[in-house]
């Protein structure tokens, strides 16, 4: 099934008609909700007085933790994150009071008139300090195979080091926003820009002290999510719900960009210590890794992210003996959270840095060292957690990409360029991605759908997934249309709504289409099972001769046809009218849970993933040795999406993920002051890639002819894996600056201009020392 139809919302996007939460019109003008937040990273609240703030005409509510009717708790996994601070604040930007007023100006005025007395407490605002202070957020995790420590001692070559990877701001274009509209009695309708409507619903009910059947959360679309709205959209939703409940009026909270950046969590910074043993051919023999994550002030999803990091430290490589230890540390910073890749980028970055160093130590081409270490049948196929990596997909992709990108010739050309230039260097890197698809918290791998067929032959599909730009609704619509044999025009995908599908999982882990697509298919299968016998009976009443059997009915080209007697055909519209008259129910729920997966988090063994998505990239860069600036010259990507559900959508995911990853690897740097205040709180200082930063020569191809029988319509998930292909940018820069230098520079993520220039200087000094010695 190759689908070239536009994005489901493309028309609405380009005309400006697409409705986001801030655009929703409700009866009555909503009050403006505003958050008064902590200026301190860590402090005790000695006393406060909000009477003056409440007295301002036009200010309808000023709420503190004491005004929460239900539970003051937003922790999604561990209950360690309050909705409003009481007694103590644990990060700059932590919400303390909520204000509802007629205008934003009035909200700000009220905020100024809140009197609050803080007693500042010692604050821990970076990872090294948290580690030094022993501030673990939970028990360390461990995954091992063999005896890495012993094998390291026996290995002919070893290397060791430390890698820092930085935080990353999601920078969804639409900031966090929610609009709560009170209804009759306890009823509350919440329009939220959330990736997890069911959790938002549950937490709103909990903080209000009402039940989930009182709360409806509806999500038409998100102006970007990337994981940043998986748990942290719950906060504005709960805040607006509290204010709506207190004022009995609709209340909207939309975070101003700087507030959004200051208050919400980021991709976890990691400090990773590694030691690797390898042979003279560059094959890894043993690796030990310590992963240290900066969790921020609360647990949030930190441990699930850590687990995914630990499950992806192998990336595409078989490592006979390996030991991986992971810790999450508490800091007085906003709780770090999900972000595309979910620990995968940090885990893969360390392994790619190890391979890169092995290659440099042995003076081998890094791509060749990668190939030698790939998972390969028959005996190098099992991961450190015991799951088998299917086939020789990596070798196949490597051979194709090396050929299609002209890797060999370009390696020579780069070398030639570098010998002729004094102040410029080019670099080339090939990096693979093997990314496990499934939530590692196994029960989350479930989804629901509700498919409604109306008697006019149109279809409305409800499912639990959220459209955040990734094209989920486009894919779901295609799946539903294909399963029903209908043109797309007859099928519409509804806004995601918790009163249609209950108890859903977040749209996350790249699983949206896999899980919800299967649930939709199941719902349609149920409809077909009901309609089939009734249609067979209808045909048998009309036609003489051999009976039509339900199993012979085909749903194709907008009709239902008996494949054994093709003249027995009825257009879908007439068929549905007939079914309605015959009292056949034309709506059905579908449910899907991923079979055959599961793993033991304690032993670190099992099959956490249904399958792997694979990708590979070759990137060439040029670096200005005088300014540390770099330009991506060309990127070639070969990606395995199984049978693509939609090539236009999938290509967009690959390109967009790669560029977002390139930002993490290069220009996106989160900086805070010594008091834990975010310094890069606006786009004037936090720089995501812009159009001029992308490779002018950008070639993306799908690995064709590799259907994936394990997912809906033989497809593969595509949301996250391409992000990590951007490690090729990072290592191409390193390749460029290390071109003729002996030694290993300090080369963290992000490799900003300053990092690059420092590395160039460090290498220059190392080379000079080398020459003296």
């Amino acid at each position, binding site marked *: 099934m190759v689908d070239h139809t536009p994005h489901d919302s493309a028309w609405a996007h380009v005309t400006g008609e697409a409705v986001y939460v801030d655009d929703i019109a409700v009866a009555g003008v909503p009050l403006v909700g505003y958050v008064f937040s902590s200026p301190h990273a860590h402090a005790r609240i000695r006393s406060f007085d909000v009477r003056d703030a409440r007295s301002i005409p036009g200010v309808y509510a000023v709420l503190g933790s004491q005004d929460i009717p239900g539970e003051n708790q937003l922790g999604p996994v561990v209950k360690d994150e309050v909705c409003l601070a009481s007694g103590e604040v644990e990060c700059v930007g932590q919400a303390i009071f909520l204000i509802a007023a007629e205008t934003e100006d009035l909200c700000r005025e009220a905020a100024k008139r809140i009197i609050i007395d803080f007693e500042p407490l010692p604050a821990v605002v970076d990872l090294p300090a948290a580690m030094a202070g022993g501030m673990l957020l939970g028990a360390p995790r461990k995954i091992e195979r063999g005896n890495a420590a012993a094998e390291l001692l026996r290995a002919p070559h070893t290397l060791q080091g430390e890698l820092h990877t930085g935080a990353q701001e999601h920078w969804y*274009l639409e900031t966090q926003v929610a609009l709560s509209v009170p209804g009759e009695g306890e009823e509350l309708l919440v329009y939220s820009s959330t990736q997890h409507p069911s959790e938002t619903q549950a937490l709103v009910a909990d903080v209000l002290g009402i039940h989930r059947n009182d709360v409806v959360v509806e999500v038409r679309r998100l102006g970007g999510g990337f994981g940043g709205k998986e748990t942290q959209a719950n906060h504005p939703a709960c805040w607006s719900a509290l204010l709506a409940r207190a004022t009995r009026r609709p209340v909207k909270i939309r975070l101003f960009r700087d507030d959004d950046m200051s208050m919400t969590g980021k991709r976890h910074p990691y400090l990773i210590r590694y030691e690797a043993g390898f042979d003279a051919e560059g094959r890894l023999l043993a690796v030990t890794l310590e992963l240290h994550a900066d969790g921020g002030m609360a647990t949030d999803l930190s441990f699930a992210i850590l687990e995914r990091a630990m499950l992806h430290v192998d990336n595409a490589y078989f490592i006979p003996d390996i030991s991986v230890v992971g810790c999450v540390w508490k800091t007085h910073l906003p709780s770090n959270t999900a972000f595309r890749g979910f620990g995968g980028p940090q885990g893969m970055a360390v392994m790619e840095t190890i391979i890169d160093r092995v290659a440099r130590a042995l003076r081998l081409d890094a791509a060749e060292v990668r190939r030698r270490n790939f998972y390969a049948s028959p005996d190098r196929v099992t991961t450190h957690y015991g799951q088998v990596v299917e086939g020789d997909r990596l070798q196949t992709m490597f051979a194709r990409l090396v050929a299609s990108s002209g890797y060999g010739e370009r390696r020579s050309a780069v070398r030639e360029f570098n010998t002729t230039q004094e102040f410029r260097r080019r670099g080339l890197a090939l990096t693979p991605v093997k990314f496990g698809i499934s939530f590692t918290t196994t029960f989350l791998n479930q989804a629901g759908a509700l498919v409604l067929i109306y008697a006019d032959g149109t279809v409305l599909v409800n499912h639990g997934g959220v459209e955040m730009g990734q094209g989920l609704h486009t894919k779901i619509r295609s799946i539903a249309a294909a399963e029903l044999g209908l043109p797309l025009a007859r099928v519409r995908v509804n806004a995601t709504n918790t009163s249609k599908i209950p108890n859903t999982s977040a749209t996350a882990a790249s699983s949206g289409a896999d899980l919800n697509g299967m649930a939709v298919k199941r719902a349609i299968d149920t409809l077909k099972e009901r309609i089939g016998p009734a249609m067979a009976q209808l045909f048998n009443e009309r036609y003489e001769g051999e009976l039509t059997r339900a199993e012979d009915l085909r749903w194709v080209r907008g009709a239902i046809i008996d494949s054994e007697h093709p003249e027995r055909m009825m257009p879908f519209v007439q068929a549905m009218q007939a079914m309605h008259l015959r009292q056949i129910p034309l709506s059905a729920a579908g449910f899907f849970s991923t079979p055959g997966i599961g793993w033991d988090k304690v032993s670190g063994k099992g099959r956490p993933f249904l399958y792997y998505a694979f990708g590979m990239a070759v990137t060439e860069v040029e670096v200005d040795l005088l300014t540390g600036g770099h330009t991506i010259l060309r990127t070639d990507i070969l990606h395995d999406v199984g049978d693509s559900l939609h090539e236009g959508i999938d290509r967009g995911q690959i390109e967009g993920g790669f560029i977002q990853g390139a930002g993490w690897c290069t220009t996106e740097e989160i900086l805070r002051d010594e008091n834990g205040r975010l310094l890069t709180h606006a786009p004037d200082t936090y720089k995501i890639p812009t159009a001029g930063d992308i490779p002018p020569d950008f070639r993306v191809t799908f690995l064709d002819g590799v259907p994936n029988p394990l997912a809906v319509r033989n497809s593969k998930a595509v949301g996250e894996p391409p992000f990590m292909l951007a490690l090729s940018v990072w290592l191409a820069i390193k390749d460029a600056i290390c071109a003729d230098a002996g030694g290993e520079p300090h080369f963290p993520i992000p490799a900003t201009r300053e990092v690059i220039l420092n590395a160039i200087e460090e290498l220059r000094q190392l080379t000079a020392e080398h020459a003296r010695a």
Partner: protein
Amino acid sequence: MQSTVLFVLDGQLVRLGFSPGGYPHVTTTLLQYLRSLPGHRGVKEGCAEGDCGACTVVLAEPDGDGGLRYRAVDSCLFFLPMIHGKQVITVENLRDPSGNLHGVQQAMVDEFGSQCGFCTPGVVMSLFALHKTLSAPKREQVVDAIAGNLCRCTGYRSIIDAGLGAVGSGAGDQFHADAGRIHDLLLSIPRDGLMIETGGRRYSRPSTIEEALDARRREPDAVVLCGATDTALRVTKNHEEIPSIIDLSGIAALRAQRRTDAAFFFGAAVTIQEVMDTAEKGIPSLAGMLAVFGSRQIRNIATIGGNVGTASPIGDTLPVLVALGAEIELTGSHGVRRLPVEEMLTGYRRTACRSDELITGVSIPRIPSDITVRAYKVSRRADLDISTVSAAFRVRVDGDGTVDGAILAFGGMAEKVRRARSTEEFLQGRPWTRETVDKAMAGLSDEFRPLCDVRGSASFRAAVARNLLLKFWAETAGANGQRAVASAEGVHG
């Protein structure tokens, strides 16, 4: 003086009255105003500081030649009264009367140029402005047109292809068909001065320099602005209330450009984009620097006078104006005086402009062919970023290969844009060789005590400043007697 702002929206003349106690205010932004209307919620706020472009709209004005000129601007940086006399076009206006998508919209659909869609209205408007100006833009021109539009989803390739694919879409659209009527409608709007007061805040837009000087005399503390791309941030980001604004953008005389054999002259209200267009044909070092000045949406509003007036320590035009020996024209009630740009810059965001004076123009002398000038900007990101360090170098090398006159001007290295005078003196009379440059680099470190901030550490700034001098030498040595051309590459650093 009148107090009603007139502009064209949805093809109709709109008379917008401001009342002292009501909404909107004089510092309400065009973005806020548009979003308060039922039919223009496609205009999005992404950052309220001109750094994302989600709020991009297009302004059309008479081009002086009977037609209309279309410019993409960030509506978040535009105070509402500044739309007086202009047509505002938003994404909602692009479909033709029968509802068909505009060519740039269709191309965005066809190329999968939207994912989450939140940046899309802004992107569409940038592409629309591009295609109203160029019928078949090249890739660099498309990239330049959308460099001010952040997209977090697509990775831009599809958007660039949409921009390339919409060939000819601007020529025959409904705006083309309606241009004559709009042109006349806009010309019917009086160009007299405006004076508006709301909520204790005053906005005046004089129509002549004399009126402006009068206003300045009456209100010496008023903020004088022209494009407001800097001042607007005080309102949108810091929520300051600015008691009084004098907006010079309505003074036709300040929008003049003159070119003589000796110099280029730009009126203070000439936009950075207009300066850049002129500079491309005669002042390459300046053109190269302006190509990485903000984004097109900002360059279309920001003015040369405004950039000089803010006197930012990293103001992108300033180092190159210093190197080019530019003079600033100041007009006061006592007459006109001209100051070299260096003398104009007296400190951190301070200038020599007196409270009874206005910056009325910038004069840039033509550079003799035996002098080389190049400008460099080093920033975290190439486009739409503030310099960490900027530099402009000017050197004349004698026939015998020695330096005869060097100017090394740096931004981002001190409280104001400053020359490295000692190093300049050191270079004087020395051979323009690597050895000399190496020594000069060592000396440069002693001349500055740069700050450490989010854009870079002091040591990084110092290293970059040194290296830029070497880069300049490497790119121009041997170019004695030739006029070097600042390539875009050189400017990116």
